[in-house]
């Protein structure tokens, strides 16, 4: 079981959290301007990185707040926990490239 450090509540068991998939996938600025290929990318395509992966979690049975986490998908080591709307630490990690420039995302929506 993962031990996840919630930014608000501190270290808690994984069973208190829910997974939200890849982080930093912004809703398209103008959905009507997208062609089918681009819309498919937004709906169905997510990075599936082997290694450091930026992902979202929500502390469902605690503070009920969303946050981002950088986790290694092979060792499962949690490398960083950081707030919604801020870029992944290091910036260059795979899985952190999509639409990072197009904040605000997450908490404000």
């Amino acid at each position, binding site marked *: *079981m*993962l031990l996840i450090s919630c930014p608000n509540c501190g270290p808690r*068991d*994984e*069973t208190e959290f*829910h*997974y939200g*998939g890849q982080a930093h996938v912004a809703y398209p600025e103008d959905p009507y301007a997208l062609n*089918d*290929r681009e*819309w*498919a*990318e937004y*709906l*169905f*395509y*997510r990075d*599936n*990185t*082997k290694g450091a*992966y930026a*992902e979202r979690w929500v502390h469902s049975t605690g503070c009920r707040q969303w946050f981002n986490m950088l*986790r290694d*998908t*092979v*060792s*499962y080591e949690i490398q960083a926990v950081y707030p919604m709307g801020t870029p992944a630490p290091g910036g260059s990690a795979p899985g952190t490239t999509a639409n990072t420039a197009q904040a605000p995302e997450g908490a404000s929506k």
Partner: protein
Amino acid sequence: MSADHLPEHPDFLWRNPEPKSSYDAVIVGGGGHGLATAYFLAKNHGMTNIAVLEKGWLAGGNMARNTTIIRSNYLWDESAAIYEHALKLWEVLPEELEYDFLFSQRGVMNLAHTLGDVRESMRRVGANKLNGVDAEWLDPQQVKELCPILNVGDNIRYPVMGATYQPRAGIAKHDHVAWAFARKCDEMGVDIIQNCEVTGFLKDGNRVVGVKTNRGTINTEKVGLCAAGHSSVLAEMAGFRLPIQSHPLQALVSELHEPVHPTVVMSNHVHVYVSQAHKGELVMGAGVDSYNGYGQRGSFHVIEEQMAAAVELFPIFARAHVLRTWGGIVDTTMDASPIVGTTPVENMFVNCGWGTGGFKGTPAAGLTFAHTIATGAPHKLNEPFSLERFETGALIDEHGAAAVAH
């Protein structure tokens, strides 16, 4: 005891050849799907100058880690067609491969625990019958008659309100299936190359012309990807993306017991599936761990939940012990259906996205993928399972419809 006293090693079922510098086609991944693909390429399409590249040992990935359940009671027409074709192949393959891999058609029961489950199950039975898939609805008493160790009383949180039953479904010995395919492939001249990891692809423009491996470069006209959980990693090397998320999926076995469990029982709602292997282990599995993972292991609470569900349904299991737990890496898609077809790279084909249910599909995956690789166009069975469906919107949404959650 010295080596002189040991019995002679049994005959090897396949050679361990050095990779040649070129092949007509290369299959990446030496699991069930890769071996079945090579088998049908050789048998149905006369392509014997081909190689199967396996980064570890033969059938050591998900083929060694699944719970061996075979069934075809899927809701949608496209799924029923391909899985039922697979089941029909399972029925003839032991003879065709001349290898008894203990395919046991002991039936599969999918329990219903809520009114919603009951309605969904009856609908699926109807859909199955229309598609020529054997299916029936059982009331709790009939469930009890078929599987006496199941608790059908109302003293549990989610009492059994009935079940769907597919009599022709069952289990098989997964390792033996892989060995059966490997032996026939080898006999027909296919090179099975283990400890050969693909590290990149050679392309001429947008056409694949070779494979880079840790054992040298291999030129080839066609490449078929059969790498399950690592499909995205290979696709990235080749320069395209797949709508796949890789998750850990865990399973476990108990110690050996006398035969107590005559069929296969799956419950979507309390979420566990249980059968008893030929040797006597109780074999159990459940859902994936929620997070993406390539670690071939998951979190223990997932195991704990599936055992809790198993003990509630089968009180007799309370005194059994967990002998081993393990995890595989499953390649899930958003519509819980596989992807078998062409890719954005010319002459490169992909078979992936079988998620938590790839074992049962092995023969049909091999048959249709071999057809696609040999002819460059999909077989009618895998045509709906193209990569393009995520753009056209023609999804085959088996989430919740396929008798078990993925």
